[in-house]
């Protein structure tokens, strides 16, 4: 399948010498929801800004819908809608005027029916004649989404779309994003809410220090890197893990009241039956047991805190 966005060897070094992107290669499939995860300053916004034409890359190529983002920028940009991280709106304009302005700017003829439906979908129709300065923060963010969707883009970039948005609105936005995907819109979102990526994304990419370190199906990354934990609540607290249980690399928690066993869910043998048998043989009783799996957040934290490989190894 031809990627709808293709980024090759993209680098960006800012005037101050900060390397925000380092030889990034990334392909986005048509119709997918792609979540770009990374800590602050990892290069997420720079990457989005480069594709959208807001930042000039130092080197590399980018294409949207097969059009080179630099050479055929008009054709490429017509396909793209952008919701930036910061809420930046025309404070003194009405919702209706600013959304129609955005549509015109992208060269689309006026279409009152489409804009009306868009505002209704975003629960903004009642506020169409209100000035943006009169709206709440959540509504302003929805206005920005409406502006980005006003020209019916094929690709939508959402840079931290739910930052500072209440839980209900966040859920509404997730539904909106899913609805857009059903209509064939490709969505690339950056987020700090890992739960958001886990909930919605078909694939996730992790960026660290300007480098993409992982791109994987969300389900696959959970399966590959996800760990499970077995927590046993002991009937009697213990001071240390007995030597005879060393092979399971158990950890003591809750001041010796819990034993925690971390295992790979994909291994053929989890080691749980033999652990329980050995504990029984040693007369260690437990009152309760609980299993949990690591969330995408745990995986993400693990990845971004991993030491980068030494350069010679990377090169090899």
């Amino acid at each position, binding site marked *: 399948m031809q990627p709808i966005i293709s980024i090759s060897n993209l680098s960006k070094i800012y005037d101050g010498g900060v390397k925000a992107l380092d030889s990034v290669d990334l392909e986005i499939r048509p119709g997918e929801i792609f979540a770009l995860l990374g800590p602050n300053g990892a290069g997420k916004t720079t990457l989005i800004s480069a594709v959208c*034409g807001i930042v000039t890359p130092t080197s590399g190529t980018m294409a949207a819908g097969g059009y080179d983002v630099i050479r055929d920028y008009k054709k490429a940009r017509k396909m793209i809608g952008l919701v930036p991280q910061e809420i930046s709106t*025309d404070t003194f304009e009405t919702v209706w005027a600013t959304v129609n302005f955005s*549509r015109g*700017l992208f060269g689309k003829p006026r279409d009152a029916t489409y804009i009306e439906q868009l505002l209704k979908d975003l629960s903004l129709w009642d506020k169409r004649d209100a000035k943006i300065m009169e709206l709440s923060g959540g509504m302003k963010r929805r206005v920005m989404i409406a502006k980005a969707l006003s020209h019916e883009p094929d690709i939508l970039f959402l840079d931290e779309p739910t930052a500072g948005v209440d839980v209900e609105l966040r859920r509404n936005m997730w539904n909106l994003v899913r609805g857009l995907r059903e209509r064939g819109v490709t969505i690339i979102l950056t987020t700090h809410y890992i739960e958001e990526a886990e909930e919605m994304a078909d694939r996730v990419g992790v960026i660290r220090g300007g480098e993409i370190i992982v791109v994987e199906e969300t389900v696959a990354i959970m399966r590959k890197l996800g760990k499970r934990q077995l927590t046993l609540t002991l009937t009697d607290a213990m001071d240390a893990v007995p030597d005879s249980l060393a092979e399971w690399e158990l950890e003591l928690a809750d001041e010796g009241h819990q034993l925690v066993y971390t295992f790979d869910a994909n291994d053929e043998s989890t080691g749980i039956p033999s652990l329980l048998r050995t504990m029984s043989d040693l007369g260690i009783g437990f009152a309760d047991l609980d299993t949990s799996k690591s969330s995408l957040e745990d995986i993400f934290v693990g990845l971004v805190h991993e030491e980068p490989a030494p350069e010679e190894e990377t090169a090899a």
Partner: protein
Amino acid sequence: MNVRGVWALYSFEMQRTWRTLWQSIVTPVITTVLYFVVFGSAIGSRMEDIGGVDYGAFIVPGLMMLSLLTQSISNASFAIYFPKFTGTVYEMLSAPMSPSELVMGYVGAAATKSIMLGLIILATANLFVDVRIEYPLAMIVFLVLTAITFSMFGFIIGIWADGFEQLSFIPMLIVTPLTFLGGAFYSINMLPDLWRTISLFNPVVYLVSGFRWSFYGEGDVSIGLSLGITAIFLLTCLGAIIWIFRTGYRLKE
């Protein structure tokens, strides 16, 4: 060409004029009326004719030029600076608009506002003095060229500016003094030789002179020279804007 995009930008900017009617049009008109009351009626009645033109009528082209220059600069500089300040400039930069289309939208709207203002001042002046226009076509050409040139200049200032105080710095501290000293209220031929020579280094002299020539058929310098200097300034501003978009100076990182 993204005609709809240019029109959207142009209309959006013009809408701001209607929304801020008092600030955009009424305030400069009131200021100009005050000039006529003070310089035209109060002081002007005691002044001799200049080159056979009544003093009150003589200052009309200069006053129009003063408003045209300052308003073109402030309209265009504010138009591009405000989106930079609020962050909405992201939308212009990510839209399928070429640099020339963006300039057409912004500069076109700023120039239109200035031209409207110039014509309103002309109509207002007619209430106070008898203004005649010997070369109406030349007057329109000068009006349009000057409005476009100084709107481009304002656009450059708006991109260069880091704060609101810088927006008013050049119009207030450079353009207004140059206009006052550029023969808006007098003919530079009335000055001693040394000051006349120094005045010839003031580019506004050529703009005021050419504009006044279109009204009364006489100027401080030849009409060809006036047109030439205006054209040079226009091309310089155009060159600077092309450079800004090529390099992304203060627009893109």
